[in-house]
């Protein structure tokens, strides 16, 4: 991951104006599809409220539900593993594969495995890993990270995919037709599915009551990856639990509508123990989730079902792209969960936001994202991680804006400068506002000066 912070990465993204607008439009289109679904379902807001309550309840009893899930999953014949962190998760997966002499693994989309850096780890140990979600495969071939949690290749144009496939698959040079390119991918990946010795998936929802879990895709890749090889490994964040099978009704009605504006994904597969004669391993992963759980301010972020709606609606994400966040999960939710891991590295993320509040209103589980982003800003300031010039500016502003004499002086000085100083004094490199924007037109007097004159001249206002 890059070491650049969000502002400079975002500035670079914005500099390619055509691309930035194209990216923004592509994601806005998905937001608009979500809106159509949401406004078309009379019980939409009720569903969101229920989902929020179900997740809140689950979080409050997470210990019990984890044990119930493990018990039931085990009874069904799955093997449940527990990983404290990314390294342990990766080691568990590697061991499972090595013990079974697996050299060829197919994977369906799992942001958790991105978070853990599983692919490079396995590849270092000589295992061929194929990401089978088309978007994930495209970024894998490009040696890139996904830029969106649901639409991994949203930042890539079809011309670039055409070039990539020409190099890697031998498709026609210059071909850009998505159907043609997808067909080529279908053929190549079909070979991978048939040759795979193990399949790894994420988990959308783990059901405590039954010990089963659900994986949702549009492509059918996770189903092929788990119906052909004899070993299925499922990587699951501990927060992905829900209590009852019936609760799935609520979440399946919300997930795809929120994510892509579809009523449901093409496949919502319920795994209820291993295939006959085969193995099923579930790896439960903490990797910082208990840390979030321990924080009153950020605990609600564990409700997240990784739908991506907050990314699609965020005007900043749309205009800066997932890569400018430098993390596997970008956008508003990413700006909350990542600083928990490393506040210094990710200190710019909670500030990559205007606190517009749109994310909170599209979140299917009603996470109070803007409040948490604001809380992170306070934490980052308390940790002394705000850049010194900004700290000084805020300290100065705080004094001026609470001291009448200083305030009156600063205001008068500002207005005088704007009225009488030559342009080059006002608009220069010391005035960042002035780079692309005009300063306010300076009035002759402030409101309070005007009001004071009125009060001198006549009676105080009343009616």
């Amino acid at each position, binding site marked *: 991951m890059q070491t650049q912070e969000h502002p400079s990465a975002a500035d670079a993204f914005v500099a390619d104006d055509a691309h930035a607008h194209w990216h923004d439009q592509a994601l806005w289109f998905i937001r608009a599809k979500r809106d159509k679904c949401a406004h078309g379902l009379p019980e939409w807001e009720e569903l969101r409220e229920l989902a929020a*309550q179900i997740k809140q309840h689950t979080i*409050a009893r997470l210990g019990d539900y984890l044990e119930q899930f493990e018990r039931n999953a085990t009874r069904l014949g799955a093997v449940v593993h527990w990983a404290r962190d990314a390294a342990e998760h990766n080691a568990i997966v590697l061991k499972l594969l090595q013990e079974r002499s697996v050299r060829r693994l197919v994977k369906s989309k799992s942001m958790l495995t991105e978070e853990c850096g599983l692919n490079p780890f396995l590849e270092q140990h000589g295992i061929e890993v194929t990401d089978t979600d088309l978007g994930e495969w495209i970024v894998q071939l490009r040696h890139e990270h996904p830029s969106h949690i649901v639409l991994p290749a949203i930042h890539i144009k079809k011309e670039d995919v055409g070039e990539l496939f020409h190099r890697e698959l031998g498709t026609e040079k210059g071909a850009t037709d998505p159907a043609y390119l997808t067909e080529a991918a279908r053929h190549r990946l079909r070979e991978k599915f048939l040759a795979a010795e193990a399949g790894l998936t994420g988990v959308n929802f783990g059901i405590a009551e039954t010990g089963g879990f659900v994986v949702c895709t549009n492509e059918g890749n996770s189903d092929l990856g788990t119906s052909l090889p004899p070993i299925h490994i499922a990587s699951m964040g501990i927060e992905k639990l829900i209590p009852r099978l019936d609760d799935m009704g609520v979440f399946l009605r919300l997930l795809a509508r929120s994510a892509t504006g579809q009523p449901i994904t093409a496949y919502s597969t319920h795994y209820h123990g291993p295939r006959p004669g085969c193995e099923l391993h579930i790896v439960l992963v903490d990797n910082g989730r208990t840390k979030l759980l321990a924080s009153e301010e950020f605990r609600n972020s564990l409700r997240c079902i990784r739908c991506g709606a907050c990314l699609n609606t965020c005007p900043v994400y749309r205009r800066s792209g997932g890569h400018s966040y430098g993390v596997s999960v970008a956008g508003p939710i990413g700006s909350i969960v990542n600083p928990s891991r490393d506040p210094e590295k990710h200190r710019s993320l909670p500030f990559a936001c205007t606190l517009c509040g749109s994310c909170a209103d599209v979140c299917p589980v009603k996470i109070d994202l803007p409040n948490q982003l604001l809380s992170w800003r306070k934490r980052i300031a308390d940790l002394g991680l705000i850049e010194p010039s900004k700290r000084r500016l805020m300290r100065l502003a705080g004094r001026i804006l609470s001291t009448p004499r200083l305030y009156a002086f600063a205001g008068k000085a500002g207005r005088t400068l704007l009225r009488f100083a030559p342009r080059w004094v006002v608009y220069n490199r010391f005035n960042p506002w002035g780079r692309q924007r005009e300063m306010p037109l300076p009035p002759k007097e402030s409101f309070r000066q005007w009001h004071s004159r009125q009060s001198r001249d006549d009676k105080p206002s009343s009616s």
Partner: protein
Amino acid sequence: MSSRDHILREVRRSLPADAPLPSLDRQWTRYEDPHAQFFEILRGVGGAGRIVAGEQQLREEIDRVIAAIGAKQICSVIPEATAGNVDIAAIEDPHDLASVDLAILPGELAVAENAAVWVNGARVRQRVAYFLSQHVVLVIPHERIASNMHEAYAWLQQSADGGSPFGETTWGTFMSGPSKTADIEQALVIGAHGARSLHVFFTKP
């Protein structure tokens, strides 16, 4: 201390105040003509199908699909639809289904709100038939339709009759339309890795 114990300890150390689990017993959207709703959505997600009355009509529809696809290798678990020439019951290794052009398979329950069909392989030995076949046809009894997902899950629980809703099988899928992707510049392409086409036939006697 094992990782399991460590994680559970960390979890239990930090739990917030208990919050109630809400009841799902609400007035959910229902459809007067659930089949009409089902087909409207199915068309929207790239699927096709209709209601057929009697075995003759079903056979005719299937023959039409076979001809349209040019299907050579056909696997059918619905003998009244067509016999097929790939006997799935005899297949031990799921990989052996790789050359199936068309699979005619049972669906257990349709869901009107999103054109999903619950399939669970209760009568299909190899689940991969639903995904590996180039084309899939689902055959469902006409009356097996729910308005929404809540009704669908209630039906699953009920039909389990006190047992596990998954019965003997270890999986089930809600399939809605053929497989698809929009990963290349958001252009919708039908037929990603799973079925290139999905037909759904509701059968009346």
